[in-house]
């Protein structure tokens, strides 16, 4: 079973590339800092955003019902999906009902989570991801490695290669302008030929029954303003109570994600296209379980900005593909175990508990606290690897016996001082592969303290 340690080890083997990836993500983090510091009321906005989300979570059923009623009064169809499978079935049914063969889809992590694309492909419906980064990874037949910057792990030479193969661009081309122009032409044809458009939802508003989709490229709007069928897929946690609340979230979202004051297009959908149909699919897929957990409820505040990923030293140096889950990084390491703890037990341990994620989260999720809580949960549910579980039990046993603890400390200080280096640092000491142990002191703290 692939876990973060194994996958990350592969990633860091190419240390130059790992360093490039690290710098690229840190650059995005620093743009966020500049944007945040330019807003004098930044901390107040974060506090408000968190409060609005917590309020929403406390009244989710009634607000969802309000959303549905208001949406329906606007001529918007609302569907409810308990699981990913339900969601996929609903979308397929709608598409088949309208004889759709070609779909264009703008960025939706929710549809990634439900594995919608391969499902539709199996039913002979062609799905084209229209966000440039998503299209690149789609052509390379790999998942996105970041929720906002899907192709952040790819170099322009590699984009040139995949475009040469699929779009007919010049071999060896690397100029981003040239490559983007080629993608523009290619995707424009797709927009014009599409039978239906699928989008995600950044925010749904209970008060109005409408929803907001944010892009920089305009691909969502093009995708749903030409064909007559628009299907918007959303996790139920994307709901907010009132339209005025959008001001708070929109001031935080793009600044946290990329350092921009706002995305180029922030589209508010309150009804279908003339002569068209608009459908919203509300998806639970484990969110109610998280809602019921005191420890992890706040993770539903997430507005999918990616700021936690950009700052996380582990994510920056291991890449999104090391997480083996749709949403990587700190937030992903909290959401994934909730869905499947057996598969994702390693993720909460892929963390130095530095707390940088919590610092930058625009909706004040206590990310690093939840990651620590998950480590406890993983042990309680019996998914801690045997070696770690044994080591923990041994340590706990020793720590409960002060005299034994002191004796072991004394022995360790002695042994480390006299042991030749090659015995301490070798393949068996995985921890010591890239780190130096501290120099063992002559006296323990207790000895020094008692002496005084």
């Amino acid at each position, binding site marked *: 079973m692939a876990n973060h340690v194994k996958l990350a080890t592969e990633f860091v083997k190419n240390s130059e590339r790992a360093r490039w990836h690290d710098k690229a993500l840190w650059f995005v983090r620093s743009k966020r800092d500049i944007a945040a510091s330019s807003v004098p*009321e930044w901390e107040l906005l974060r506090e408000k955003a968190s409060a609005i989300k917590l309020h929403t979570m406390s009244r989710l059923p009634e607000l969802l019902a309000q959303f549905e009623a208001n949406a329906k009064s606007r001529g918007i169809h609302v569907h409810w999906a308990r699981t990913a499978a339900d969601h996929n079935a609903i979308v397929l049914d709608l598409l088949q009902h309208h004889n759709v063969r070609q779909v264009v889809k703008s960025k939706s992590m929710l549809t990634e989570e439900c594995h919608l694309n391969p499902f539709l492909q199996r039913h002979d419906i062609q799905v084209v991801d229209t966000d440039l980064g998503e299209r690149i990874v789609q052509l390379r037949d790999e998942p996105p490695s970041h929720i906002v910057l899907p192709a952040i792990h790819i170099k322009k030479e590699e984009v040139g290669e995949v475009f040469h193969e699929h779009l007919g661009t010049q071999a060896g081309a690397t100029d981003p302008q040239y490559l983007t122009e080629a993608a*523009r032409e290619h995707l424009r044809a797709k927009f014009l030929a599409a039978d239906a458009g699928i989008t995600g939802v950044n925010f749904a508003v209970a008060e*109005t029954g409408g929803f907001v989709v944010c892009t920089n490229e305009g691909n969502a709007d093009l995708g749903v303003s*030409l064909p007559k069928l628009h299907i918007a897929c959303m996790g139920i946690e994307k709901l907010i109570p009132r339209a*005025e609340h*959008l001001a708070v979230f929109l001031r935080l979202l793009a600044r946290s994600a990329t350092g921009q004051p706002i995305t180029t*297009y922030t589209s508010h*959908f309150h009804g279908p296209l003339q002569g068209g149909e608009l459908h919203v699919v509300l998806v639970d897929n484990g969110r109610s379980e998280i809602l019921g957990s005191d420890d992890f409820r706040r993770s539903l505040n997430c507005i999918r900005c990616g700021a936690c990923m950009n700052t996380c030293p582990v994510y920056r140096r291991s890449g999104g593909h090391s997480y083996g889950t749709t949403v990587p990084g700190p937030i992903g390491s909290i959401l994934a175990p909730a869905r499947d703890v057996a598969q994702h037990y390693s993720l909460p341990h892929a963390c130095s508990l530095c707390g940088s994620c919590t610092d930058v989260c625009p909706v004040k999720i206590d990310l690093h606290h939840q990651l620590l809580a998950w480590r406890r949960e993983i042990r309680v549910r019996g998914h801690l690897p045997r070696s770690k579980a044994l080591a923990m039990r041994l340590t706990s046993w020793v720590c409960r016996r002060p005299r034994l603890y002191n004796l072991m400390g004394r022995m360790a200080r002695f042994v480390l001082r006299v042991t030749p280096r090659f015995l301490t640092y070798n393949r068996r000491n995985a921890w010591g592969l890239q780190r130096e142990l501290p120099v063992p002191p002559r006296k323990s703290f207790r000895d020094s303290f008692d002496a005084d």
Partner: protein
Amino acid sequence: MLESWVEYANPTEKFLELLAAVGGRGHCVDDLSAAREIIRQNKTLASAARIASAVPELEPGNVDLEQIDDPHELADVGLAIVPGVFAVAENGAVWLDASMWRHRVLPFLAQHTCLVVPAGEICNNMHEAYGRLDFAASGFGLFMSGPSKTADIEQSLVIGAHGARSLTVFLVG
């Protein structure tokens, strides 16, 4: 909300500054004829073969939107001109209400887009913006801030992704 949010001494200036920062072009003009002149002086905009305008007093255009039923026929529009409702200083955005022109896709599908906004209709921040908006009668509206763009290829910013390659905003009056 009861808080007081950021306000600018000169919101118009702030708007123009932010618009430029996101790759858009802004012009304060006294009247529509001044705007027309600016368009004529711009080689790229002036050379557009097909112009679809929902602001006929500025530019009648040569695409009759009322005669077109299928928005796909707008694929060859070089320049789109649509009215904006108000501007937002803090982020260079303009609120557009699609009920003010025919075919929602127009400002996204055209190669270049111009927005015409009354000069006095400008607010400081997004909270004020939502104070002005009433979604009761709205079908589709959006904040548009600058031209389309992407940085998905090795973080290099490219202006003109799928939407308009350029955005020009006229603050008129």
